[in-house]
């Protein structure tokens, strides 16, 4: 049942991604000032949204893990954090590719760009902390770090509202002059749906992998205990 659901979900995601690619490259009209390079927006913004979503899920899972101490939530937290880092990397790579032809520079230390880089560094540290701290309460430490990371994620989202930045002001919900052409909006929404589903799919697969890893580690520990003659409760 689960594998059937997964297959349907994966196929719908693939279909939406193909449709989104078509809409982004062919369906949407070319923007008058920036030209074709504006089409990066159809990938850049959905990826930023998936990043925020994954970090939000990581935050919720970390809080529940700290309360319940159930490894299931830890697995969910690490899955969400990893997917968050992947999409944050895409955002940090595609942003400068848009910035160079439009601004004339690859990078500037404004509030949005800098806080996104800091967010990436926080979550890379989170993953390194989990991977390389031997023994000890590393999931607890990582969950605590995730809470700080989430504060920065809120800052990343609000930075263009709180400060005057080189980064464009909000395209949606940014006041009377915000908004885009309906055909552009259509391409944007298809890609938002496609990337949201891709994000959920990747978190789902990574979660399953983490649960299997936890079970293998548990089996290793049981075997070691059996080898030393210590009986597990």
């Amino acid at each position, binding site marked *: 049942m689960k594998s059937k659901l997964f297959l349907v979900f994966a196929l719908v995601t693939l279909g939406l991604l193909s449709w989104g*690619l078509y809409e*982004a*490259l062919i369906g949407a009209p070319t923007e008058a000032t920036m030209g*074709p*390079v504006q*089409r*990066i927006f159809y*990938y*850049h913004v959905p*990826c930023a949204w998936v990043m925020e979503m994954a970090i939000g899920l990581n935050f919720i899972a970390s809080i529940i893990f700290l309360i319940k101490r159930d490894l299931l939530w830890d697995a969910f937290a690490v899955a969400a954090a990893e997917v968050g880092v*992947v999409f944050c*990397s*895409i955002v940090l*790579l*595609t942003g400068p*590719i*848009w910035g*160079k*032809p439009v601004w004339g520079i690859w990078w500037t230390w404004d509030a949005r760009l800098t806080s996104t880089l800091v967010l990436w560094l926080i979550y890379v540290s989170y993953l390194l902390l989990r991977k390389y701290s031997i023994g000890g309460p590393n999931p607890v430490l990582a969950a605590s770090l995730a809470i700080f990371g989430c504060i920065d994620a809120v800052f990343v989202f609000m930075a263009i509202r709180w400060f005057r930045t080189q980064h464009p002001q909000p395209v949606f919900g940014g006041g009377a002059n915000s908004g885009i052409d309906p055909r552009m909006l259509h391409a944007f929404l298809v890609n938002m749906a496609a990337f949201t589903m*891709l994000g959920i799919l*990747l978190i789902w*697969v*990574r979660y399953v*992998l983490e649960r*299997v*890893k936890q079970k*293998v580690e548990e*089996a*290793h520990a049981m*075997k070691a205990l059996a080898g030393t003659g210590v009986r597990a409760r």
Partner: protein
Amino acid sequence: MKFLYAAYLITWAVIIIYILTMLHGFQKVSQEMRDLER
């Protein structure tokens, strides 16, 4: 156009590399499981 294609290619490259890394993770874990069963 080269900037546009570069951005799209990089996006897909990162996602595909991540998917391949996960598949490698599954392979590694199932090998470990087999070793444990032996």
